[in-house]
């Protein structure tokens, strides 16, 4: 039993390919955990949703590289296996 890891990535397919078990879909390469165009409040809320999804991912058992999407209706823990 190792230490569970959740990785937030804008280019999530790359993370899945390289063997990361819990991958959370980030926004863009320039701003992975938010979107400054949303303005400070919504940017913060969006970032919080991404981080919460990541924390939930840490508590989720997975059997291989799995994508977690913060945009899906909360709580986002629908796991999609990488192709």
């Amino acid at each position, binding site marked *: 039993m190792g230490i569970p890891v959740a990785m937030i990535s*804008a*280019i*999530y*397919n*790359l993370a899945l*390919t*390289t*063997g990361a078990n819990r991958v959370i*879909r980030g*926004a*863009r*390469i*320039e701003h992975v955990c938010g979107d400054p165009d949303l303005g400070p409040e919504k940017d913060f809320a969006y970032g919080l949703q991404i981080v919460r999804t990541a924390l939930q991912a840490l508590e989720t058992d997975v059997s291989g590289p799995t994508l977690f999407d913060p945009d899906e209706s909360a709580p986002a823990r629908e796991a999609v296996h990488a192709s």
Partner: protein
Amino acid sequence: MRLEIGTFPVHDVVFGAQTQWRDGLLEVARDEILDAVRSDPRIAKADLELAKPGESVRIWPVRDVVEPRVKVEGPGVVYPGICGRSITTVGEGRTHRLSGVGVVEVSETPWHESGGDHLFVYLDMSGPWSKIIPTSSLINLCVVVEPDPNLGVDARNDAVHNAVLTVSDRLAAATVHQDPPEREIFELTDVDPSLPKVVYILCLHSPQAMSGSPATFCTSTYGLTQLTPPWLFHPNEILDGAITGPYRTAFATSWTMANNPALLDLYRRHGTDFNFLGVIATRTEWTTQHEKEMTANQTAKVAKMLGAEGALITWDAGGNEFIEVIRTLQACERSGIKTVFLTSEDDPTGSAPTLLEPVPEADAIVSTSFFRADLLGLDPLPPVDRVIGNPQKISGRLRDHYVPTAGPLPAPQRYDDHYGFSKLSSIEY
């Protein structure tokens, strides 16, 4: 679109009273050319130095190498669009080139001020590094140039590259009224319709997302470096320098793009082995998975609409740009276009695959070796007698100290043979 390329081979270069080419000897009027460079008020310092193959010389840092070319007949100018040059569509008429000579852009001007992307390309004119870098076997006229430091970074980049093009233009102009010793016609003639229809998909890194630079850093298309949709080129446009500009690898200089062996080989086999349909330039380093997949899909769509049955795919970068490239390959294969992928490989001893995202459709790969130069067994590169450019070279993983450029030095970080110039041999095991 018919283009005649007239080649003037250069066997030696000397400084002299007049810029002229005669029987392979290129004479360069140094002072006159430097006056032209210095007449741009943005230029603070400029000098010209010669470096010849076999000399114990290191050129540091190298931002670009340009082959002197000039349009003698037909519309437009060579290397169009960049540095405010004419954007008239090129590729027709007659173009002269000086072969065997490079105009080297030597300057400390950074690409941008966003961090990263350091200048680290250098040329050795002798020794092991020189043997695998194509531009090391040229007679290199080095333009050592620094702009007014008070200018913005884009203006400094523009001024420095413009200085190099000024020198290149002056050299090539010496051939305008002479008959070229060698001539070659490039034309996409009607061919036997049963020949396989092939496109060349040329993936070009865009700096837009990382540096915001609109035009002055990275290989440009008619001067633009932005993220653009897939762009269809006639190969003649590329031979006239429509895809050009300073870049951060030794294998994607302006000289490299104009002498791309993958492009030239494909073109020369048009009508014999292939029906060459054209070149699709696809920009990479979009910053979401969606954008990367969309640009891949759209590239494959353009290829399909052209009627392609086969595609040669190359790229010029590393890292996340690979997604656009490999997904383009996948989208082509899924729409029935067979692909061949020319690429270097990552270190096979790490945990990541040698290709970042291996897809089953990538079943025809031509490898040009590992891109990490430290795996080539060249360390350390021997010291040299003379340095052109900066005698001090930034060093260390943290880039926190300077060492004498004359060396000895560890091999450069990357060896990126994007277009198959390779002088390396390989074994399969």
